[in-house]
């Protein structure tokens, strides 16, 4: 299991080697991959949430009443429900909804009730993932549920930000576009959307920062993230373990602090550049300043 050959008997090692072995034991290697899990989650969730938000904002602006109600309902309900409730119960409900649908599809002549008291019982074929599926399938499924839940929650906030940003684009811009003979759709896609981003960016960048720090909620969904591992690895390890140590959580959390600060600092730089780029040629103070500097 151990990477280095001298790690066979940890009790006999001197300090430097002990740490080398300790930091490369199987448990630590699993913990290191959880950094990848978190980054992957962010990479998938951010665009998905943005898409949800965009859809929500467009729906909330729609002239068709039911679509508008849906858009407004989505943003207000999801924004109003505490995250912890969402992550504890919504995910279980979502999972049950999938299994219920599969159950209707696969086992239409199932004699028993699905709800038996507190239990939710579907036929074996309807299970998601199948209970005989390897553990990684369960983990990928949990991860996808997490992405979907994060996307729905953060999508609602993004929808509100984008809805506001769409309204912030000066009315004169749209009127000019229409005066040039653009249809409503053309004015929306060619004039409103490109100008909206600069107004949406401060709100969206806040959301991104919050999303970066919200990943510990993953463990509620059974996905083991970096905060779970920091707590688990740092906790006091007694004589049952090969590498006993006192409570080292402080050091592990300091490691996390460095990771998160690096990630948020990096995000700030990228978002700063993006903001500069989006301001280019815009009728905003920042855009005006850029124009003057170029003259």
């Amino acid at each position, binding site marked *: 299991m151990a990477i280095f050959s001298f790690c066979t008997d940890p009790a006999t090692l001197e300090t430097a080697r002990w740490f080398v072995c300790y930091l490369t034991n199987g448990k630590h290697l699993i913990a290191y991959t959880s950094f990848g899990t978190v980054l992957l989650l962010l990479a998938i969730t951010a665009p998905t949430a943005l898409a949800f938000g965009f859809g929500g904002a467009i729906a909330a602006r729609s002239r068709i009443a039911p679509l508008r109600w849906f858009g407004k309902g989505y943003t207000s309900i999801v924004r109003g429900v505490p995250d912890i409730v969402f992550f504890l119960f919504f995910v279980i409900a979502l999972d049950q909804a999938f299994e219920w649908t599969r159950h209707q599809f696969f086992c239409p002549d199932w004699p028993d009730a699905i709800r038996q008291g507190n239990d939710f019982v579907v036929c*074996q074929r309807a299970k998601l993932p199948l209970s005989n599926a390897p553990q990684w399938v369960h983990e990928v499924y949990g991860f996808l549920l997490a992405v979907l839940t994060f996307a729905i929650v953060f999508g609602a906030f993004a929808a509100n930000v984008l809805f506001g940003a769409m309204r912030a684009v000066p009315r004169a811009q749209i009127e000019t576009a229409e005066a040039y003979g653009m249809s409503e759709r053309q004015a929306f896609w060619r004039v409103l959307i490109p100008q909206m981003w600069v107004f949406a960016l401060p709100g969206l960048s806040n959301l991104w920062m919050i999303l970066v720090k919200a990943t510990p909620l993953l463990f509620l969904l059974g996905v083991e993230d970096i905060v779970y591992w920091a707590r688990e690895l740092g906790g006091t390890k007694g004589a*049952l373990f090969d590498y006993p140590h006192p409570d080292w959580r402080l050091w592990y959390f300091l490691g996390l602090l460095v990771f998160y600060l690096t990630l948020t600092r990096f995000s700030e730089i990228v978002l700063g550049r993006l903001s500069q780029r989006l301001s280019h040629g815009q009728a905003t103070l920042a855009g005006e300043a850029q124009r003057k500097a170029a003259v």
Partner: protein
Amino acid sequence: MKKLILGALALSITAGAAYAGSHSVVRMGTEGAYPPWNFINDAGEVDGFERELGDELCKRAELNCEWVTNEWDSIIPNLTSGNYDTIIAGMSITAERDEVIDFTQAYTPADPSNYLAASDDVDLMGGVIAAQTGTIQAGYVAESGAMLVEFATPDETIAAVQNGEADAVLADASFLAPIAEQNGDLMIVGDPVALGGGVGMGVRESDAELKAKFDAAIQSMKDDGSLNALIAKWEVSTQW
């Protein structure tokens, strides 16, 4: 967005159409943070008394078992929702839990709980006492008149006593004994308290077949003395 949800739904309906028999794999849910009962060992696997016990029970019941970890807070809802099939996580059999899930017969007897404190003159009935959320100990402290502070993990309850946030922590004697031994500044105080009706495996109320299988396996381990040997090896409780 609707399209995405519909797409995900369609995908999930069609995914994995292979037929699975009744309990071809029994998923064993545990916490993985309560040594010596269950913990994640240095190789990153579930280990401890319940790992060894669970593997032996599965062998005797001729079941194919797989281990899963889940946070203590949501360990019961995830069982009833079918994300795993058993809870084997040092869970004491209590009337409140029995209303929601079923328990197999106990595999360890009702074990005394102890108070662990930084000094021997703390007020156990009126002071601030730490316990893990949703445990029998937390319920007992709340009724004892002491001020209860709850933590999500067992580790945090110990840390609370060490940094003075709580006067003492109430937990299973077997969990606290090695901690008191290793930390010179922590000690067991007061008299042991008997709580709960022993530790058993949690199963869904609708899963009578699985419950019967594990009941029989536990009984056979009790009868041939191998359960007592396991309890002695891991020092988790008194013997049968």
